[in-house]
């Protein structure tokens, strides 16, 4: 469907664009992008989606879009919007199907040269220890319904108590790995059933575990505070709430489609279905969403544990000796009640981040003490062939984007197009020749996920850095990847 982009867009400066309020929009849209990126962004429906979000009642500030914007369901991916608690709405489409899809970054005391000869073994062992791909389930983690409900209430703390990782890990997770107010009774039986066998699995598509190294440092002081050094080996885990989160989103979209009608909310797109934050359905969604988010925090904590075990197995020494520590874990599909300054006054708002990451600046009380001087770590994964970035939150984020920044590269080619582009090329061999070992469960995953299918994440990161919403700290390059 190639519809001409009818939305008006005005350039504000090098990094910012405005979609002026018109028609039923209650506020402007603001898109962070360069001119070159905007040419691409205009080719699909994303700008219309940014404008559509501005229809929603109780929106505070503008309908925002990060530079990795692409079109999604209702809200664009890369969308950020905040709503007042009094008269504003909450919308599952503003969070996404994969509730608390997020990223975790671990550091080690190892250098690249120590790990390069062992990458193939590490990748094979990770692939063996962490189920991924279609239909993947764990056989060793049998949870009763009650235990699973505890996972939804306690999040990463559940995993630590069950022996996966350490208590100190919790300090280095957004919300300490547990969003308060989760109510597992509001999570359907179907969601629980889907989640039961999938805890500790990676999923497929663009989820992965990646071993890499610090290739460049941009901010020495911040790198030091985060425990990063040149050539250091790092590990990234990217996954979410699996079938449980998807089902919670499905369930509540159905419920909120009806609420939208009942509350007489006019919408340009039914995937923006919503309910007032303080309505019973609104509260129920947030409580169920928190449960799914906590499941994802636990999932990443479990996977981290198996990453540690894998390194212990290959290097025949303890994780402590190897210096395997969690730097930080962030969500990029979530809705949270946070306090922000709006027209100089403190205000509690429900911030939706769909394919966007929290990026609190130096001094913010919600940042772990170890990072408070430099800002909250932000992890921006790129594609498997190029690089990923570590950033920290900056003041500009609090001033402009409700403390938010981008989340990744964003696709430019559809899976079908990517498979075509990859045809006849030995992608795995190509990556091997560049020093990257990939192991994937899916038949076509690697072809679908070729680097060319994605935007260049460095351009995305340059925009948020240039706009002052986050600051570059380091660049990481991949050495070994497992995918579903």
């Amino acid at each position, binding site marked *: *469907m190639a519809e001409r982009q009818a939305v008006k867009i005005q350039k504000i400066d090098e990094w910012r664009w405005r979609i002026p309020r018109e028609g039923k929009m209650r506020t402007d849209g603001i898109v962070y992008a360069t001119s070159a990126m905007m040419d691409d962004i205009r080719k699909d429906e994303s700008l219309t989606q940014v404008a559509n979000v501005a229809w929603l009642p109780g929106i505070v500030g503008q309908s925002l879009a990060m530079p990795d914007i692409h079109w*999604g*369901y209702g809200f664009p991916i890369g969308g950020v919007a905040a709503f007042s608690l009094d008269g504003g709405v909450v919308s599952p489409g503003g969070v996404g199907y994969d509730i608390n899809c997020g990223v975790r970054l671990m550091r080690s005391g190892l250098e690249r040269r120590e790990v390069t000869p062992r990458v193939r073994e590490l990748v094979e062992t990770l692939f063996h220890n962490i189920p991924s791909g279609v*239909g993947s389930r764990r056989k060793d983690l049998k949870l009763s319904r009650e235990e699973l409900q505890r996972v939804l209430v306690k999040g990463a703390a559940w995993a630590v108590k069950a022996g996966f990782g350490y208590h100190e890990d919790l300090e280095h997770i957004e919300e300490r790995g547990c969003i308060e107010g989760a109510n597992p009774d509001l999570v359907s039986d179907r969601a629980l059933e889907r989640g039961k066998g999938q805890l500790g699995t990676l999923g497929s598509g663009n989820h992965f575990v990646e071993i890499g190294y610090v290739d460049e440092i941009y901010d020495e002081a911040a790198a030091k505070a985060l425990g990063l050094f040149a050539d250091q080996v790092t590990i990234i885990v990217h996954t979410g709430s699996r079938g449980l989160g998807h089902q919670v*989103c*499905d369930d509540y979209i159905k419920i909120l489609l009806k609420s939208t009608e009942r509350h007489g909310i006019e919408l340009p797109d039914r*995937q923006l279905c919503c309910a007032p934050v303080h309505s019973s359905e609104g509260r129920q969604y947030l409580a169920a969403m928190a449960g799914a988010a906590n499941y994802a925090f636990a999932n990443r904590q479990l996977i981290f544990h198996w990453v540690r075990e894998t390194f212990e197995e290959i290097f025949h020494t303890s994780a402590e000796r190897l210096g395997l520590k969690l730097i930080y874990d962030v969500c990029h599909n979530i809705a949270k009640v946070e306090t922000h300054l709006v027209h100089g006054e403190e205000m509690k708002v429900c911030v939706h981040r769909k394919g966007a990451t929290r990026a609190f600046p130096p001094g913010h009380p919600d940042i772990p003490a170890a990072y408070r001087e430099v800002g909250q770590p932000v992890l921006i994964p790129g594609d498997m062939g190029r690089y990923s970035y570590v950033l920290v939150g900056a003041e500009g984020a609090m001033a402009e984007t409700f403390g938010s920044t981008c989340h990744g590269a964003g696709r430019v080619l559809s899976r*079908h197009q990517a498979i075509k582009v990859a045809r006849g090329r030995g992608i795995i061999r190509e990556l091997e020749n560049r020093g990257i070992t990939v192991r994937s469960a*899916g*038949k076509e995953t690697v072809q679908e996920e070729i680097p060319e299918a994605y935007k260049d994440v460095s351009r995305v990161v340059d925009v948020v850095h240039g706009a002052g919403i986050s600051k570059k700290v380091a660049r990481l390059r991949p050495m070994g990847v497992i995918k579903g």
Partner: protein
Amino acid sequence: MFEAGAVVGEASGSYEFIDHTADVGIRVEAPTAAALFETAARALTEIVTDAGAVMPRVKRTVELEEETLEVLLVSWLQELLYLLEIEGLAFSRFGVKIDGTRLHAAVWGEPFDPELHPRKSDIKAVTYHQLEVGRKGDSWEARVIFDV
């Protein structure tokens, strides 16, 4: 109005994949609403694995009712996804009956086995995005986007 699918197990309809940057969409065409639902189901299996490799060894029945035919299509496809995730079953043959916005179906397939069935894309959800179900001239058409 009671409509039955064609020969049991044979979906008489066609589908194509729609190019969508981050996800996968299908456009389906069939002579009846029931055949439309059967063809959409086969397309869903084809996204996840090779539908031709799935043998019709195990049978399940599905009973659903929704307020509109569109939501019924989404629920039908979600049900098949659910059976894949929870029971580990993939389906390749479908016999659907539609009565207004009520569906009764028999589905045949087998346990998903990566040794037999190539792993393609994991479908996270069936979305309502650009959802369309309706008559077009003499036939029925549908469009559904999946979050993968």
